[in-house]
């Protein structure tokens, strides 16, 4: 099914797409059909810059379990780094 579940956040940073690095403005996180991952639904993360063409996108499609591991890893790294 198409869930239409999308969460968005403004982000600052850079992403590397097919044409090299570009400035990121937004991350779109959806739980919906993936394009490539062999899953019925995936946790899809798109780092984009809305001022650029649709190809300015860094995309990942993760299983829900993988997405939770990613969340844990991000939080762990942040905690260690911000404690320095």
């Amino acid at each position, binding site marked *: *099914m*198409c*869930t*239409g579940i*999308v969460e*968005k956040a403004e982000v600052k940073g850079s992403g590397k797409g097919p044409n090299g690095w570009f400035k990121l403005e*937004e991350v*779109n996180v*959806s739980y*919906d*059909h993936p*394009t*490539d991952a*062999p*899953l*019925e639904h995936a946790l*899809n993360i*798109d780092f*984009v810059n*809305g001022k650029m*063409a*649709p*190809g300015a*996108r860094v*995309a990942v499609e993760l299983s829900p379990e993988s997405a939770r591991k990613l969340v844990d890893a991000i939080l762990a790294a942040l905690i260690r780094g911000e404690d320095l």
Partner: protein
Amino acid sequence: MHRYTTDMYEGMLAETTTVQGFNGDIINAYFARPLGPGPFPGVVVIHHMPGWDELYREMTRKFAHHGYLAFSPNIYYRFGHGSPDDVAAKVRASGGVADDSVLGDTEGSLRFLKSLPQSNKKFGVFGTCSSGRQAFLAACRLKAFDAAVDCWGGGVVMSKEELTPKRPVAPIDYTKDLSCPLLGLFGEEDQNPTPQHVHLLEEELKKYGKTYEFHMYPKAGHGFFYYDRPSYRQEPAVDGWKKLFGFFEKYLRIYS
């Protein structure tokens, strides 16, 4: 269905083109047609949420192969250009494409098909997933089709909380306006539409005395035609295509 004999001539022309769609915008489209004078029925092939992609190019050619003038408008045209999945990701992030926009593009596509000298003046509309919903919506609101096929269209039944400015009315609320026979193909394991959603739509169709044909396949979920996804189910897919072409032959083909 296409009845092959080994001595028959067959030819097809398939190419991208442009058409005037919603709001008078010139959008691009994919047009596949059998060669020969016809007359041929026409089908507007509305692409699904994952985009105006290779699968929909193949489906458009499949209709042409079976003797239909098949026209697939790029309903994501206004979101820019890039690979189909990049454009689809942009559309997904912006909450999808507006119903009125899709209807305008569908109407423009129909107008184009009507203008063709090889048309038999019978027209169908087809869609899967989000575009199954849009095919149903077009059959209700445009009142210009002779047959419609909704394959597992989710969001035909919508709660008030699910309505948005882009999708302001649940399509089921337009059922009384359905102006042509409807074929629905669904999977029992689908979560949207669930069998309960399909049942609600069926009740509405009965209530208004509409002509419809629904098939609910066991051991199938959403998107069982998509051979490139885990949702593919061979038996329902093969049977579904047979049912689909049987339906279009019945309502769109004119035999002299």
